[in-house]
């Protein structure tokens, strides 16, 4: 089985499925579909970003018991990274870890079990996770796809991502009054106004020294249209990247509005967090399967970044990120541990089989 997983992973890696190459997005989906003979393939497409929903049986169930979610798109890379290489038990290449290795194992375990399972199992293959997931997972949810439990095969080194932070991208804009820099009392500096806003951030969300499960605010960008040294600037814009813990979901917006009172706020993205309750039976079943296959207790992890699982939060769906061992995601040196791919496959297979 290990060979089969590695072969499929390599096949997927060798397709340069970045968002800049829409034909490659179609190609990578086609390669997967070819593997899934005998299953119903429901095709979706939005903005030239194809995705499929795969299940046994002729019609889509109202609600799936479990959905495996895999994204087949990758971020751009050096040319050589699209030629997968095996070395010292590792498979190198763009997407090896994020997440074509995981996708191959998910697909093959699904293929093996789903047809004979009494439960409704779905496989979601998308091509736009790296750019937000709106044309894939989100589109499918809007088309009525539901489940109480989704497993996104993102790289987690076998950790189970039970929670992931929500994301807010926003602009904060300050306005002032122009004056000559030597006569500042005649104007009002928008940069100094912004300085106050930044002080408020430091007070409310101090910079973390180390990893902690807390809401973070990153000042991603700051600028003013003024280019002259001796002018009091009358505008200043700051872009924030806020990652909030699910516990802050309901309070974060009023908190922000209070913190930046008097400034203009523009919310560019307001993404929900992802959280799975400990009593979710599928979640419990996944932990059991991990323990029985690997012989080790599953490691619960909290994710600072979001994945496509978050889209299910909008429709009360829960889910986790769970994937094999790898490293170097988005870097020039991305790899996945080959042995972990087959372990991952076995865990997923066990998990599906145990859903009686």
């Amino acid at each position, binding site marked *: 089985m290990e060979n089969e997983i590695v072969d499929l992973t390599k096949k997927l890696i060798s397709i340069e499925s970045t968002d800049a190459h829409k034909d490659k997005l179609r190609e990578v989906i086609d390669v997967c579909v070819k593997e899934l003979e005998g299953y119903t393939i429901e095709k979706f497409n939005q903005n030239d970003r194809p995705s499929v929903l795969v299940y046994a049986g002729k019609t889509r169930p109202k609600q799936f018991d479990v959905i495996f979610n895999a994204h087949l798109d990758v971020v751009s890379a050096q040319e050589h990274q699209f030629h997968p290489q095996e070395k010292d038990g590792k498979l190198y290449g763009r997407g090896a870890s994020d997440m074509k290795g995981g996708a191959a194992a998910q697909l093959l375990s699904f293929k093996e079990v789903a047809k004979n399972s009494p439960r409704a199992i779905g496989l979601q293959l998308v091509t736009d996770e790296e750019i937000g997931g709106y044309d894939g997972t989100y589109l499918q949810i809007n088309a009525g796809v539901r489940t109480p439990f989704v497993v996104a095969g993102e790289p987690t080194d076998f950790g189970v991502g039970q929670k992931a932070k929500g994301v807010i991208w926003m602009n904060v804009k300050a306005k002032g009054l122009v004056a000559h*820099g030597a006569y500042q009392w005649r104007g009002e*500096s928008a940069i100094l106004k912004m300085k106050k806003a930044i002080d408020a951030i430091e007070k409310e969300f101090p910079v*973390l020294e180390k990893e902690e499960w807390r809401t973070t605010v990153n000042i991603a*960008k*700051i600028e*003013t249209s003024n280019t002259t*040294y001796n002018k009091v600037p009358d505008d200043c814009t700051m872009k924030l990247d806020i990652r909030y813990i699910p516990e802050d979901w309901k309070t974060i917006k009023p908190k922000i509005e209070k913190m930046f009172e008097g400034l203009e706020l523009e919310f560019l993205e307001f993404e929900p967090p992802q959280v799975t309750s400990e009593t979710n039976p599928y979640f419990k079943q996944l932990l059991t399967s991990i323990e029985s296959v690997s012989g080790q207790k599953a490691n619960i992890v909290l994710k600072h*970044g979001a994945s496509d699982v978050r889209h299910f939060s909008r429709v009360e769906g829960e889910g986790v990120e769970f994937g094999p061992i790898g490293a170097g995601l988005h870097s020039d040196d991305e790899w996945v541990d080959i042995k972990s791919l087959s372990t991952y496959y076995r865990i997923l297979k066990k998990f599906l089989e145990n859903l009686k």
Partner: protein
Amino acid sequence: MVTAKEKKEIISVVMDLIRFDTSTGNDKTSKECLSYVKGKLLRNKITSRITVVKNHYSLLSTFKPNTPIDYLFVGHIDVVPSSNPQAYQPFINKGKIYGRGAIDMKSEVGAMILSYIQAYKKYKKSESKLNIGILLTSDEEIGGYDGLKHYVDQNFFTAKCVILPDSGHADSLTIAEKGVFQVRLDSTGFAAHGSRPWQGENAIEKLMFALGDLKKNFPLPKKNKEWVASMNIGKIEGGNATNSVPSRACSHLDFRYRNDDDYSKIIKALDEVKKKYDITYTIVLSGKPVSVNPKDKYIKHICKIGKEYGINFKFEYAHGASDARHLSNLNIPIIMFRPNGSEAHDDNEWVDIESLIQFYCIISSFISNNSRHIHKI
């Protein structure tokens, strides 16, 4: 006193000067404007020379070449661009001349040209032996480097007293102008994914901390009367992708300072943030403060002449810098006052005609009528 003919001529020259759109960048028009002045001088049998440095034209004329100048008129003919094309069509309304450059500083330049011509006539009739000069430049609004600074650096003249009516008011002489010191701050951090800020170091935050420290040293002046060193943050820029911890940020600062002590304080404050936040700073522009001793004989003299025209000159301190800063190393007394007019650079620039005539009378009297007297002091 001034004759009706002289008054008419002053107004006409000022309006002629305004009609040249000598906005920053219009170097060809500046050359034409100076050629107009050259022609005017020539009609009065005065020679002058137009020189050019990096597309910026200047005109220099003196009674006697290569001789120390007793009184040097200095002015600039360039103006800041106006969005209103009508601004270069001067008109008179209720005793005021309106137009771009009316107060900054084509009226003053016009008055100085005519004052210079009148003095020359007396010089020719041997009524005066004084060597008077006039230097008109066309790059003051962008720093004056190719104009006045070039002339100073090249030792093109030595003068006992300079009249530079680009600051002050009709009833007050500027005796100090703040120095200007502009620096660029650069802050460097480490990039990281925006979801894991603790793995990086945010260059914008570091920069903001540094600006906060600097601001404590140079609090915002609240009113005109606060004669203190100040700091303006003109620009700030940093970051790129929304989901990244920015690794670079920069800021442009404009300090205004009174004296050497202030200057040391600025350098000390910059060195402190440099050390504390690992920030670099680059000096972009440095212009010294200008100060004139109110007890200087030339200042006393202009005050005396002012009184003859009913003006009791006050002394004032200017927050802004002018071309006068290029003269600060020469230790020459500088006469800085100007007629009543609007605050410069707006689209309704004006000068009061009566005040302009008075200005003309005072400077003319200053450089000729009583000039022998002062040189005996």
